[in-house]
């Protein structure tokens, strides 16, 4: 008879590795994106000029830049979590599955960082 508690036995294995983090973060990022997505489309619709300098000025405003940073970060995160679930469902074979999930993470981190860097360049870099 083991003296370990049931909790202690499952911690670190199976779904208990991360518990409900994946599910929960999908929800939290979803709620954030309801707000950020609505802001993005409404704010985008209100822009006067869609020329390159007009877009640059829109992104460069501190409020827009902050909201865009939040949007990029949350979007990449939510997308990464979501695509991972699709991979887990449809990609079979352990090696292929793990490789796809890792590649998915790399691509999303790359896209998220590229977005953040572009926004920072616009805000901090002065006029285009």
């Amino acid at each position: 008879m083991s003296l370990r508690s049931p909790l202690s036995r499952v911690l670190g294995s199976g779904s208990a590795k991360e518990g409900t983090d994946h599910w929960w973060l999908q929800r939290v990022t979803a709620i954030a994106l309801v707000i950020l997505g609505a802001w993005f489309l409404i704010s985008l619709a209100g822009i006067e000029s869609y020329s390159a300098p007009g877009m640059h000025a829109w992104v460069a405003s501190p409020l827009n830049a902050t909201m865009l940073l939040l949007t990029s970060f949350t979007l990449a995160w939510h997308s990464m979590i979501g695509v991972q679930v699709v991979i887990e469902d449809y990609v079979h074979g352990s090696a292929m599955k793990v490789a796809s999930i890792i590649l998915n993470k790399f691509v999303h981190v790359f896209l998220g960082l590229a977005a953040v860097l572009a926004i920072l360049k616009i805000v901090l870099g002065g006029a285009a």
Partner: protein
Amino acid sequence: MSNDERPLSPHLTIYRWPITMTLSILHRMTGVALAVGLIAFVFWLTAIAYESVSYELFTGIAESLLGQIALLGWLFSFFFHLCNGIRHLIWDTGRMFEKHQADLSAWAVLVAAVVMTIIYWVAI
């Protein structure tokens, strides 16, 4: 000890196709479409930020027929995924789970997504 005569449980094809299944599949499809759209989103931001990435190249692609179809697709995907996502969040609280409620909310989401897409596309 295989037995070919075993009764099989009814599979998807045996049922009359319910609207909720369409919505479930659409939620995943629009999600994947939006993940691809993330690439376009990043391309758009880099086109604004860097002179080496031509903004005219971006607008050229966006204004082409293929670009317009893609933008319309992403717009619908966004509104659908948004509305159906809210439906999922409501389900997460344990509400609206009855069959007739799920059917009703399915149609509500579809109509809302289409209407929002049309309004936004026309307004822009």
